[in-house]
């Protein structure tokens, strides 16, 4: 029986976004990094795309500044819905912290398993450090390391599926480069990560399993092309562990369009293919994410 906890983070994100909407003049516009270099925010609260983080830090603060953002995201799939809200903050384009709360609704799974809970909530806290390089201005990529601590708050269903732990951590190393006029005179964004993880479905189905209960390295890639200063199209790939014999786990893919009308706002829409998710195959659907920077 899951106990209802006060949902502080979604409220905080909503309040921040509303404040951003209402304020006439805004700090984000006086921060110095170039439009869209804040990136969007992933489902785990990290600066990046939709499912794959990047080496960039959130907000628009350059190396003498700070900044951050708040976001809400929603994924609609045939048999699942995922809602995420969170905040992040970066200091001197060197370190960043983020917090995200995820809520997975899984009514069809509950019916299939004949269990009562119909949703799983998870909190993800992340710290990211830029180790070297600049996204644009150095000859080598910007390289960052991130660590994510994840706590699954509704472990009943994950445990029934064979997950070993209700919390865990991911470690990842990310390299990102924006090549100006890189392709067809458009700015080309390239990103590659390696991640050390034992999370099942990013932790929503717990950590570790009967097939494998130790961390392993997985790869993540994303690439995008800026059509102009405001529009980015691209795709992502995220390799996943496969720890549970009861529910095979697929790698994830997205194809996205991101719109950065100003430093204050960004909106991302994506087609997502999450493959087989906890006994339901062909989980292809839509992703939308709204981000406000401050």
């Amino acid at each position: 029986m899951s106990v209802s906890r006060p949902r502080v983070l979604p409220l905080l994100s909503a309040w921040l976004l509303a404040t951003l909407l209402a304020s006439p003049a805004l700090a984000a516009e006086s921060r110095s990094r170039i439009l869209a270099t804040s990136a969007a925010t992933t489902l785990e609260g990290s600066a990046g795309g939709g499912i794959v983080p990047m080496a960039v830090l959130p907000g628009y603060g350059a190396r003498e500044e700070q900044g951050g953002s708040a976001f809400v995201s929603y994924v609609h799939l045939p048999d699942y819905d995922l809602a995420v809200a969170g905040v992040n903050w970066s200091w001197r384009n060197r370190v960043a912290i983020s917090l995200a709360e995820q809520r997975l609704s899984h009514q069809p799974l509950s019916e299939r398993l004949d269990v009562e809970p119909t949703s799983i909530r998870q909190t993800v806290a992340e710290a990211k450090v830029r180790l070297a390089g600049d996204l644009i201005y150095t000859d080598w990529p910007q390289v960052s390391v991130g660590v994510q601590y994840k706590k699954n708050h509704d472990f009943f269903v994950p445990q029934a599926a064979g997950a070993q732990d209700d919390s865990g951590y991911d470690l990842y190393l990310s390299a990102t480069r924006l090549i100006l006029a890189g392709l067809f005179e458009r700015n080309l964004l390239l990103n590659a990560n390696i991640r050390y993880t034992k999370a099942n479905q990013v932790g929503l189905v717990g950590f570790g399993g009967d097939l494998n209960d130790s961390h392993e390295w997985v790869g993540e890639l994303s690439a995008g092309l800026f059509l102009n200063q405001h529009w980015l199209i691209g795709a992502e790939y995220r390799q996943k562990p496969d720890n549970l014999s009861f529910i095979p786990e697929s790698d994830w893919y997205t194809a996205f369009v991101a719109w950065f009308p100003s430093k204050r706002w960004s909106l991302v829409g994506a087609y997502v293919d999450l493959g087989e998710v906890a006994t339901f195959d062909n989980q292809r659907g839509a992703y939308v994410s709204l981000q406000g920077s401050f």
Partner: protein
Amino acid sequence: MKRLTQGVVAVLALGLVACTSLPGGEDSLYQRLGGEAGIEGIVYELLVEIANDERIVERFRELNIARFQQGLETYLCSVTGGPCQYTGDSMRIVHSGHNFTDSEFNALVENLITAMNRRDVDTGTQNRLLAILARDYKDVVYL
């Protein structure tokens, strides 16, 4: 794992295409910027942007603006394949001792983009100029 390999190949292929399509192309960037008049217009708009930008305007108070304006025009002309020879001090010498910051460099780039937008410079031309100027980062900041 097979799909990961495909992904890696795709990204590498993108990188390869990217390297072969770098600036240095057919029509000179100088012409696409509108030649002498085009560059003068961009530099003028840039100065207007700087004058209204409290993040960096103080840095320009001590400068001889007319000299800066002319030096920048010549520099842009020379790096974009125009008929000019920039004979001033190197970027590193010009900027050393001022300890210009990463924030200030970014602010200047942002102002340049705004200036080019004001002058209706198309995206591809903007990107090619920025790609050239971005290389100067190491000769501008924290010196």
